[in-house]
């Protein structure tokens, strides 16, 4: 229980840092913290393989990508312009509070479908073997389909960042392709 409390507290602290700190690098480091704590929570939930993946893939690879882009775009400067939407922050607070309260209330209405000890045992500690087996049996189609998703991500991001040259069609008129409002 104490482990849970500590981990969850740190998770929330990381989350708050993520959404409130002005410096983008610090914020993403906050998120890294949250992700690591969540990995810890996975471990307490008998999902050991998942916990490892979370650390390696999520907190590692994905966040490095984030940090890289932040550095690349020099985006860690805080935004200084006047906020055109000053009313959003209080409304967001209200909405967030409603949501958090609602979820918390709902959470405590949750009744476990079977005794926890029994179900914990059935998880086989979330070891790579059983997880992989599930992935290749009950999740075979999603597992295959995810590859399409990754393909889309690769092709799409390359196409976006390295905009392909527009091919001239025989019928295209030279001037017709100009777009309105375009600043060269």
């Amino acid at each position, binding site marked *: 229980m104490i482990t849970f409390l500590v981990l969850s507290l740190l998770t929330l602290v990381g989350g708050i840092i993520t959404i409130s700190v002005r410096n983008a690098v610090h914020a993403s480091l906050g998120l890294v913290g949250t992700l690591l704590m969540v990995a810890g929570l996975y471990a307490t939930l008998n999902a050991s393989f998942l916990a490892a993946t979370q650390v390696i893939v999520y907190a590692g690879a994905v966040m490095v990508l984030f940090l890289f882009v932040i550095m690349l775009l020099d985006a860690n400067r805080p935004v200084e312009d006047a906020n055109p939407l000053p009313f959003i922050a209080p409304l*967001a607070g209200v909405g967030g509070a409603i949501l958090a309260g609602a979820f918390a209330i709902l959470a405590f209405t949750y009744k476990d479908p079977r005794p926890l000890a029994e179900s914990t045992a059935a998880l086989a500690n979330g070891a790579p073997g059983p997880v992989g087996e599930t992935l290749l049996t009950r999740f075979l189609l999603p597992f295959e389909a995810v590859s399409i998703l990754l393909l889309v991500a690769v092709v799409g991001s390359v196409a976006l960042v390295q905009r392909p040259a527009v091919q001239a069609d025989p019928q295209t008129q030279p001037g017709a392709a100009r777009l309105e409002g375009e600043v060269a």
Partner: protein
Amino acid sequence: MESVPTSYYIALSGILFALGMIGVLTRRTAIMVFLSVELMLNAANLSLVAFARAWGDLVGQTAVFIVMTLAAAEVAIGLAIIVAIFRKRETTNVDDLASLKG
């Protein structure tokens, strides 16, 4: 080791989700908005894992793998869009993108 009730995890994930939501609204650069979305996704993952334990069924955990991959793909595309826009406008401030309206 006594096990922490599922409810606690769900409550935590709910709060995390709401935090992410607030972040989406209050952060003003596209990257930070997107980071907040990651927070929301992690909240969903956390509850999936907690439910997987409650049901004693690995389906929940396996779904988390899928969601993680999905998040990674989303990050790739999202950051590409952000970079593409930055090249033209030299800004990642989402409030600067308000010419289409009405």
